[in-house]
């Protein structure tokens, strides 16, 4: 127990200010205000892997680490599309996931935002379109914002999420 407390004290708080949606410098507070203004509460994200190589998921996970600490900014990942304001979709859409993605989209209440994250989600990436892949996300459901990168960095992901929130403002 003592070692544990010592560790907590030694590391302290490492969270960093959030990056800008556009170019203006943002701070945690204005962002939180923006989310509140648009949604009236915290932003709930449902992540859907529609066929990714799992590289994108590694960076989506990183958003929860103490540096980005998105929960501290009022953004959290939820377990059901019914609780979600925004779908964060990764990967090209495999044909075997096409229906599951459509169903997830349909289950998300209005107004729903969709962020397509990663080169595959934006364009189909290296997998493209084939007998097994529908390619980019917008071939299957409407997309508000695309975030390129293979995988996109957490900072880029955050920018994309913020851009989607702002676009609806």
């Amino acid at each position, binding site marked *: 127990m003592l070692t544990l407390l010592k560790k907590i004290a030694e590391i302290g708080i490492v969270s960093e200010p959030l990056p800008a949606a556009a170019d203006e410098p943002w701070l945690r507070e204005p962002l939180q205000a923006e989310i509140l203004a648009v949604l009236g509460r915290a932003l709930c994200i449902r992540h859907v892997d529609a066929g990714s190589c799992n*590289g994108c998921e590694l960076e989506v*996970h990183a958003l929860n*680490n103490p540096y980005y600490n998105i929960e501290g900014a009022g953004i959290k990942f939820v377990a059901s599309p019914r609780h979600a304001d925004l779908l964060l979709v990764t990967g090209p859409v*495999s044909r*075997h996931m096409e229906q*599951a993605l459509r169903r997830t989209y349909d289950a998300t209440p209005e107004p729903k935002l969709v962020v397509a994250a990663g080169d595959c989600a934006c364009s189909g990436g290296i997998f493209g*379109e084939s*007998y097994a892949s529908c390619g980019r996300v917008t071939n299957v459901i409407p997309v508000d914002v695309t975030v390129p990168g293979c995988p996109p960095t957490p900072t880029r992901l955050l920018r994309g999420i913020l851009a989607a929130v702002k676009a609806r403002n």
Partner: protein
Amino acid sequence: MSPQTQQEPAPIQGDFPARRLTVAADQWVHTAESLRPAGARLLALWASDERDHGADFTVHAAILKPSRLLVLELRVPEQQPVFPSLMPVFPAAARMERAVFDLLGLRAQGGDARPWLRHAAWPQDQFPLRRDFAAHRVFPNAQEAYPFVRVEGDGVHEIAVGPVHAGIIEPGHFRFSVVGEKLLRLEERLGYVHKGIEKRFEQLSLDAGQRLAARVSGDSAVAFSWAYCMALEGICGLAPPPRALYLRALLLERERLANHLGDLGALGNDAGFGFGLAQFSRLKENLLRLNEAAFGARYPMDFVVPGGVAADLAKDSKPPLLRQCAALEREVAGLRRIYDEHSGVQDRFAGCGRVAPELARSLGLMGLAGRASGQARDLRNDVAAPPYDRLSVKTAGRSEGDVAARVAVRFDEALESLRLCRKILDELPPGAVRAALPEQPPEGFGVGLVEGWRGPLLVALEAGPRGTIRRCHPHDCSWQNWPVLEHAVIGNIVPDFPLINKSFNLSYSGQDL
């Protein structure tokens, strides 16, 4: 089938001892069986369409005899597209053989006839990896019912989960049969992220294939791209410069570290210890940030290229890399003590999701999970392709086979990777980081073998004329380990499933292809 006389095995050029041997159908199972007592394991099984070469179809089985690879090959005629199942010798063959039918239409006799990778994207009489199947052909997505195995009995009910899961993970379907809280049976259904990787390879040129290999399973990008390049370099008879091999190993060990750090945190979290997640994810982030400074990207997916690596270490990055090794060694050892002393965490880990060594051996459990169940095998030692022949890796080993043992193996291997990183940096040879591929790579067959963070993985590559890829099969050990997870959960309670699952952390993309 005409009786064939036993041929001599032919060597496969490359970094480690490997041979291929064509056998007759009546020798297929027998040959595999004769290797089993010496501890041989099935590393991969796949098939190819050779009708344009007048050889009908070929089924290939890559068998690892502790330190040598043998690729057994069996010709299968088009008129009678069946072959004997290897399942009685290697249970892990079952799903691979089902995939061979889905993709090439060759049926393993005596096996499970249900589809595995094919759901609804193409009909059951179409076979995507046949050469006359057009990659872009799209079929109507007709849903087909999949016959799960039902457990009957008083009070038994089913819980169906997925393909979309509650967390940030890959899609797959799990069917649990439970009585109260207790798990009687788990049946997995995968294939949701099948995106036609093997067909896609055949549209790429040999010198671009490593980019796709890196994206077979993104968490093992370095391992897969290295295995691909190893296969291609074997075909070309090309040895990358020593500095390039050291840099590949440095990045492979950092990939191992990143995954172990991430999973150790997630395992703490799944056991109700959020502190672990916060600390380990902080360490992982530090590692990724230094990757960006030293290798140009947090996840340098395209760093390993045919002939070497894409770039040298960034200037002046050796001292910070060494400093990070020291800092991580201290922090990981400290966190290990905290995990060890935390009775709540230990209570969840110990005895949970146990795979006994005997079961692990018979099912062919591989990699880190295998090493936690008494299967002390590691390609970095067994095969020791350069530069591992000079690094003498200490193989981790436990025999309890529970979550606690898999956690212990991850701690041991993370610390060993840190030692290796330091050694690699200290001994980093000078010189070039890339050798040129021949302008016109020769046709031929090559194999790459790499011990990724999860376990052994293989890339089998057939180079066609004019720098084309004729066939490429990337194989992750998740193929072997997924079926063992079904056994590991039996008798545990439902809420422990996420913890057990995480302790294996298998790839969906890497096996769905």
